[in-house]
């Protein structure tokens, strides 16, 4: 199972969620993706999309510099 990191810090357009969606397309089922985001909105809108489509949230943390690390697994 592969893991990848998508660095979407400082991204307003296309923004972290669009970066995540675009990347998920080229992943295999079971692969995980770690999204780095400086946008607090990502901690809410990523899980919303992930649940709606049926992928899995792995975990979300915020580091000491304020960056969110959001891990998602492709489930379908």
């Amino acid at each position, binding site marked *: 199972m592969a893991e990848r990191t998508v*660095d*979407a810090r*400082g991204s*307003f357009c*296309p*923004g972290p969620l*669009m970066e995540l*969606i675009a990347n998920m397309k080229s992943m295999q089922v079971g692969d995980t993706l770690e999204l780095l985001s400086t946008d607090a*909105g990502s901690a809410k809108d990523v899980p919303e999309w992930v649940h709606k489509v049926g992928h899995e949230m792995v975990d979300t943390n915020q580091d000491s510099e304020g960056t969110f690390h959001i891990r998602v697994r492709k489930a379908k």
Partner: protein
Amino acid sequence: MRILVVGGGMGGTIFANHLARRIHHEMKTGKARITMLSASHEHVYQPGWLYVAMGRATPDELVREQQSLLEPGIEFHVDPVEEFHLAHNHVKCKSGKVHEYDLIVISTGSRPMPENIPGLKENSVNCYTAENAVEYYKQLSEFKGGRIVVTVGLPHKCPMIPLEVTFAMYDFIKDRGLLDKTEFYYTYPIGRVHSLENVAKWAAPEFDAKGIKYETLFNMKEVDGKNAKVISEEGSEVAYDLLVAVPPHKGQEVIEKNGLGENGWIPTNRHSLHMEGEHGKNVIVLGDTTNLPISKAGSTAHFEAETAAENVAAVVKMGRPVKSYDGKVFCFIEAGKDRATYAMFNYQNPPQPKAPTGAVHAFKMAYNKLYWATARGLL
């Protein structure tokens, strides 16, 4: 220093011209040389295709001979690169010719891939090539009423196109007296009508005022042409009479084939614009082909190219770069046929778009002509 520019589009051309002007003395004395390789003898102003689709421009107005845009002294060949040998500082072209370099700049752009969504290519129109824009205009001008659906794939170049085609079609249909027979249905991948929050805050009420319906969190999975409906990954279905697509994009095949980056996007340092990894030290990447999390837009290519040209000139003259790219992007947003606004932002600061005005639209129309001065590195 031998500088090789691969790609004669927005990024490559603006870079080469800016640099040539800065190192014109070094080029004369043979201390520096700029060679450009492109896949075409033409330079196309792609933003013009939006107007072609609306019957407000023709494709030939948007094209210039690439050679005519280049500063004297830049050596130009129409010979697409097929092999990148970054470890050995050379590329091999379609003709078989090998070009060696000390520094390579890659700006090969991106390509629409409607074929990546089942059913999309055969059942939709888009303005992402000259041919498609003409077909779009044909279908739009033959449209007699019904439901127009806008559907958006990821990633795509020009982030404003989803909104721009919607507003432009609204005015087009209104002018033809077909508004009461037409329903507009806009879909968008994330939970608001545009990726830029402040643009979404402005656009959603504009949609409401015009009666344009929208569905967010909608990512195309497939198009069922037989039943004329588009199906989303999120599980909804939308029927259409005319399907307008913003197709998903990839970088060029040659980038993927040479293992420079998945899907043709080259991993790029967000500040230095060098390719990441072992052989990236003398590789600069510009425009759509970077994997940076910023808009794939001409203005991005332009600001990156200016930064890179200043840096390379400084390296030629004093051995060190002088600038860091701050993520600057400036996008006009056409809000119909006679009003526009714009969004300007960088890695640190989100845009604060203002209400659209006729004056900004007039400026965009002027810019469409002035673009050729930008390509020459004058503006």
